[in-house]
């Protein structure tokens, strides 16, 4: 694990890292559609108990000729993602994607045939 200690000061155990990934990089009509995300990977028991995924995503449409890595670096996307993830860690039960809450009694959001 890399040294990423914004999240681990105080109440959290160490060994947390952010894994970055380019989720989309396609070019259409000279425009590059870029979606870049970072997800928190942690061994922290408290965070893991929330059964949620803490992540943050950034999207942009840029000139197809621009270098992707440089664009991400120049716009400090990793720093922004790390900051947003640190905010979420302060209240991890509200991770945007999780198994913490169950569905309503009557049905799912989209009714199914089966």
């Amino acid at each position, binding site marked *: 694990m890399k040294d990423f200690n914004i999240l681990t000061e105080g109440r959290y155990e160490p060994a947390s890292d952010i894994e970055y990934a380019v989720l989309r990089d396609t070019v259409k009509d000279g425009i590059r559609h870029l979606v870049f995300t970072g997800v928190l990977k942690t061994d922290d028991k408290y965070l893991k108990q929330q059964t949620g995924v803490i992540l943050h995503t950034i999207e942009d449409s840029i000139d197809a000729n621009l270098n992707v890595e440089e664009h991400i670096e120049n716009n400090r996307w990793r720093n922004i993602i790390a900051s947003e993830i640190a905010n979420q860690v302060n209240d991890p039960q509200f991770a945007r994607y999780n*198994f913490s809450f169950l569905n309503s009694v009557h049905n799912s959001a989209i009714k199914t045939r089966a």
Partner: protein
Amino acid sequence: MSSVVDRVTLESYDQDQIRKDFEEKILPHMPRKVPLLNATLPTNPDDHHMLYTHRPAFEDYVKDTIFEQILLDLPFKRGRATFIHQLPGMTLRFHRDPDDKYHIAINDPPGAFFFDMELQRGYRVPCDGHLYKLNTRARYHTAVNADCKDRTHLVICPYFFDDDPEKPTVTTTFGFDFEHAELPDVFTSVATPNNTIEQGFFVEWISSVFHDTTCKNIWGENTSKGRRYHIEFTDADRMEKCMTSALNLEASYAAEQFGIKIENSYTR
């Protein structure tokens, strides 16, 4: 930021008439076991299973009641409208809807409340003949009836498709499969893995899909170990944007962290 409960009508309907029509014409049709009663119908009976489709027609028991007039007066296309009759002590689990809901309170006793999870606060919906918009889109919420009397609301969903209904459509599918996933052991016969995965990961994206005015329909089909959504648009470019949006890709990536397999022909 909009508030959680907003009044949207300038003039109120007759609350006495609302209660009278409910008790005399609607309540006799209310199922006892699951007290939910449908009010609106799609033109095509084959679409009855779809929650998020155009429902311009009315159930017979709604005709010639004040509820028919309330539904006809709405300044948007009607989707599903349901009478929700919460008996004393009845509550829903926390969930989030893909859309905001419009409520007209028929009975809302002092011990009943709508609860917003994010703000950790309960709200009354006044029984004053006005229509209220509740901010339920992608927000965890529930309704609790801790009173000794019934809480009854008519709950209305808008239908957002605003394109030519005769226009040719394009279709696609999006699905998830949890066969090889690591799932927490929290499921029941009602809170199934499919419902829970949909709630926990895909409600925001689903919401963005059918708020697109060129999305004509979306409905889910359970598969052996997952769910597949059938999506119909009148604009192929808009459909591609929805299928490759950051919201979709982010939710898919989050689900994949648990080993849930995603099926999306636009990205794989």
